[in-house]
């Protein structure tokens, strides 16, 4: 059981990295990966929201959705939107400094498809509570890792002599492609 949980965590983090292997959460990946500092903060905020969402999605899946499966999409998106709202209010109350640092990134998490994707994949795979928690932690850590790696490369890329026409998103996408190739090397690691 322990082994199993560890594999789920590792697999979600590097082997099936949410961003580089499954293309989830690309908007923040492209949007906030220009500086390492903001990338790290965004990653941490995501770990928080992903974990809470995973718990809520698990609870929903095992209660209401047993009787009304067609409400899955609607109930998940409502839960995610309200979770983000509650997190935002809680952080604002508890730590105004952190709230100012996160700024616009907090509400943006609602439309991060990694979170919605996590809720869907986790129920599709039929994970139990501990497994779901491990999956969420792994996915969030993988997202933060990809974001920070990407930001590191892009900071260097700003200083490099890139052809004018290739600057900006095109170069960033090719960098992401090369990072993704690197992550494919982990594919032999697990099952």
């Amino acid at each position: 059981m322990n082994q199993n949980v560890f594999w789920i965590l590792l697999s979600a983090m590097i082997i099936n990295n949410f961003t580089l292997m499954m293309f989830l959460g690309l908007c923040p990946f492209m949007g906030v990966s220009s500086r390492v500092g903001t990338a790290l903060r965004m990653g941490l905020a995501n770990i928080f929201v992903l974990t809470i969402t995973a718990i809520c999605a698990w609870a929903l899946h095992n209660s209401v959705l047993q009787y009304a499966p067609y409400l899955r999409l609607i109930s998940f998106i409502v839960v995610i939107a309200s979770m983000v709202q509650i997190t935002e209010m809680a952080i604002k109350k508890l730590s105004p400094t952190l709230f100012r640092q996160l700024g616009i990134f907090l509400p943006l998490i609602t439309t991060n498809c990694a979170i919605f994707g996590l809720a869907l994949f986790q129920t599709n795979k039929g994970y139990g509570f501990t497994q779901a928690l491990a999956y969420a932690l792994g996915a969030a850590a993988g997202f933060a890792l990809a974001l920070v790696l990407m930001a590191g490369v892009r900071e260097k890329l700003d200083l490099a002599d890139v052809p004018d026409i290739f600057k900006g998103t095109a170069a960033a996408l090719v960098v992401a492609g090369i990072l993704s190739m690197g992550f494919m090397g982990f594919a032999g690691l697990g099952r």
Partner: protein
Amino acid sequence: MKQTTPHADLMRGIWRENPVLIQLLGLCPALAVTTSVENALAMGIATFFVLLGSSVLVSSLKRFIPAEVRISTYILIIATFVTVADLSLEALVPAIHKELGAFISLIVVNCMILGRQEAFASKRPVGRAALDAVGTGIGFLIAMVMMGGFREILGNGTFLGFSLFGPNFEPWVVMILPPGGFLMLGFLLLGLAWFERRKARAAKPEADAATPERSAA
């Protein structure tokens, strides 16, 4: 907001403000399911349906939606149409539905659709909103088919399942693997930028002649 003609509303999304290639919205599906033309088409059509349906509904309900909860309302409307699309695809083409998997459900969080509701459908009459949705949907479909086409031709040597190059073609397997999606979109954007620059240069040859060292760079 400035007035636009119906024709401009329709054409805007197709090319000049193409959601994927110019505005870089809705990238997740554009990269994840474009491993073959067939999948790309199915995804494009499903997104088209959801966008059109929710634009018309949002536009017709705009008087009744309170401003404070408008985003949640839009998301709920979108989620309803996605549920319809999801269940119909499952019933009509189960093979493709299985291949696309959770990405059909992920249309809910496609920022392109929410963006059109917030920027356009919530402020305009129903007819215009529908035209805008049709244009944006076609633009998305074009981008998806371009991505899917290039990736399938290079990565598999086929187009819609028909073999193009004969048995001696060595497929570029990387193109249908995840890195290929990033690389293909990167090069597609590069090609577009190159094309735009050529066009701009052809339109203004005298400006180019004045600064020859810049054109050489």
